[in-house]
């Protein structure tokens, strides 16, 4: 059975592309959510996942808040969370790691390597645990 990934991004085009590259090149089974609250619903109904790919800047509930909510409801206890962000400043990255992210992938991502990057981060996290 292929690994299951929850993809959360408010931009539909990015969801489509990320989904295509992750499914075709990475062999993931991707469940998509368009917002933080949708992500919570997905996590409650069809969790747990093998990984969560979470956009940082989203209207309403942003990425970090979504992560905190997921943690509060204990929906992602052993799931590596990876952020997708256009902000690549060191301070930003450190902040995201400090709240429990397994890694950060910069936007715009390269569709050919996205899946590998994600795989790398997930494996590193699992190796740590």
């Amino acid at each position: 059975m292929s690994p299951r990934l929850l993809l959360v991004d408010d931009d539909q085009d990015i969801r489509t592309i990320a989904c295509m590259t992750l499914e075709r090149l990475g062999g993931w089974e991707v469940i998509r959510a368009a917002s933080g609250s949708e992500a919570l619903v997905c996590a409650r109904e069809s969790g747990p996942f093998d990984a969560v790919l979470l956009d940082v800047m989203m209207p309403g509930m942003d990425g970090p808040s979504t992560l905190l909510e997921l943690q509060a409801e204990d929906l992602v206890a052993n799931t590596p969370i990876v952020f997708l962000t256009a902000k690549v400043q060191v301070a930003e990255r450190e902040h995201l790691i400090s709240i429990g992210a397994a890694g950060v992938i910069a936007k715009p991502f390269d569709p050919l390597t996205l899946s590998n990057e994600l795989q790398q981060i997930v494996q590193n996290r699992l190796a740590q645990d």
Partner: protein
Amino acid sequence: MIRRPRTSLLALGAFVAIYLSWQLLHWIPGSRQSIGDLLILPVDGAAMTTAWWASRRCSDSQRLRLFWRLLALALAAELTGDVIQVLYEVGFRRSPYPSLADPFYLAFYPLLLIALLRVPVAVVSPTKLLKTILDGTTIVIGGGAIVWYFVLGPTAVEGGQSTLAMAVSMAFPVGDLFLLAGLAAVLLRHGPQTLASPLRLITAAVLLGILADVLYGSGQLQGTYTSGDWIDTLYVLEFATFALAGISQRPVSTEQSSGEVSDPAGSSSRASWLPYVSVAIALGVLLGVERGDPFFPNVSLVLIVIVLGVLVAVRQYIAQRELLHTQAALRESERVKDEFLSIAGHELRTPLTSIRGSLGLLDAGVLGKLPKEAENMVAIAVLNTDRLVRLINDILDIERMAAGRLSLDPVKLDVRDLVGQSIQVVQASADAAQIELQSDVEPLMVLADGDRIVQAVVNLLGNAVKFSEQGSVVKVKVSLAGQNALFSVADTGRGIPADRLESIFERFRQVDTTDAREKGGTGLGLPIARGIVEQHGGRMWAESEPGVGSTLRFSLPLAARPLAGSEHGVVQHTPSAPRPPGRLEGGVL
């Protein structure tokens, strides 16, 4: 009529020279008084005439024309007074005081004051206006103290004068005081640019006049003054300076350039030293005064000093508050700019992510093989999207650096790793250009943000590759230099002219402006590299011999001593099989 400035200047200078030589040598025989009075007339006339000419040169600016006309009128009043004085002296051989000349002399003051107040000045904020008023008051009190001590006070206690004579004697210094206030009102605000140099000369003239009046007044009191006295020299100089002011007025063609006065930031500091000079002079004079002077008791002395002190303190307080306000506004605008950049960066990257993603999938053939021509088109689109992404990243980086907000995460790193990673990034484009990358790196440890230093080295390498000929070699070296690791990237390209060695580190500067298009650079690589190195406490510079090549060097402070027992190795990075240019990431277009 003499209308050409140079001729006017020569005539004026010649006359002043004649007058001065007469004062010194008395080479004209006859009554000193009459000749002195006669010699003042030409310079009065010159001042009046040049002011009138100046008004005609300002025909397109209503307000400037009015200013010069009023000034000409004031000078005409002075001239009339002098003509009457000459008639008394020469015609009737007597010099009554007060005389019919005095109303004209006195008319000079209000007319000049009105002229000064008609000078268009910038509309200013209430704070600035308050500051101007405080400065003006300080100047007038300081000047007033001097005028009172030398002229008004002695005149008031002087017996044996008619009331009229006393009133006239006191009117002159009082007029001077008002002029001083008027000058302060004009000088402490921002006047029109076109009037700047005439206004400076008018200020000098008025100050000369005030000095002359004070000396004249005290000379009259002591009965030592007669027409033709050396004090008259000051009056001659005063009116010669007025004439110079008239001559210095340049023609004004439009209302726009003269009547409109902008109030640029920092204009408040213009002439703001005046109050302090005034306070200094007043204090100097007052402290020199003997104690127990009947008309100038110590109490008023102390009072004046206190008032001046308070005025200056209040002004200082207001200026300080204004400064704080400006700083706060500046910080706020910095914050807004930062936020804007952050949002703009995000907003630009979001659509680019989709574009880059779709193109990347098409380009890689994930969705099936494309026809040959379509493949080329997609490859071009991918390259340019990458270039756009780099440009956005570079602009954001450079803005962060300018704002001092580039955050670093320094850890102890081996320079060999840094150089190795950098070469890895550039290898593909070097291969495509068939350029060999060689490295010769000593094992040194630096305290640095690895990603950022790699970015800097990549920028230098990218630059070197871009400007190198096919088949040439780009060498990276790192060696120990004192307490620093000295990095150098040398190419054998066309070199950089000596006068451009610094400007290549300026934003969007490339030695040849066509390079930006041909070489596909952002023009920001080197400035960013230098910014990164400087933030690490290092230095970056370029050396070059045109035609032979360039070497860009930078230093990074060492974290500790060199690693013990490490091998000093030379690594060769030979080009691998060239790939089609279209396949490159971050490559040359």
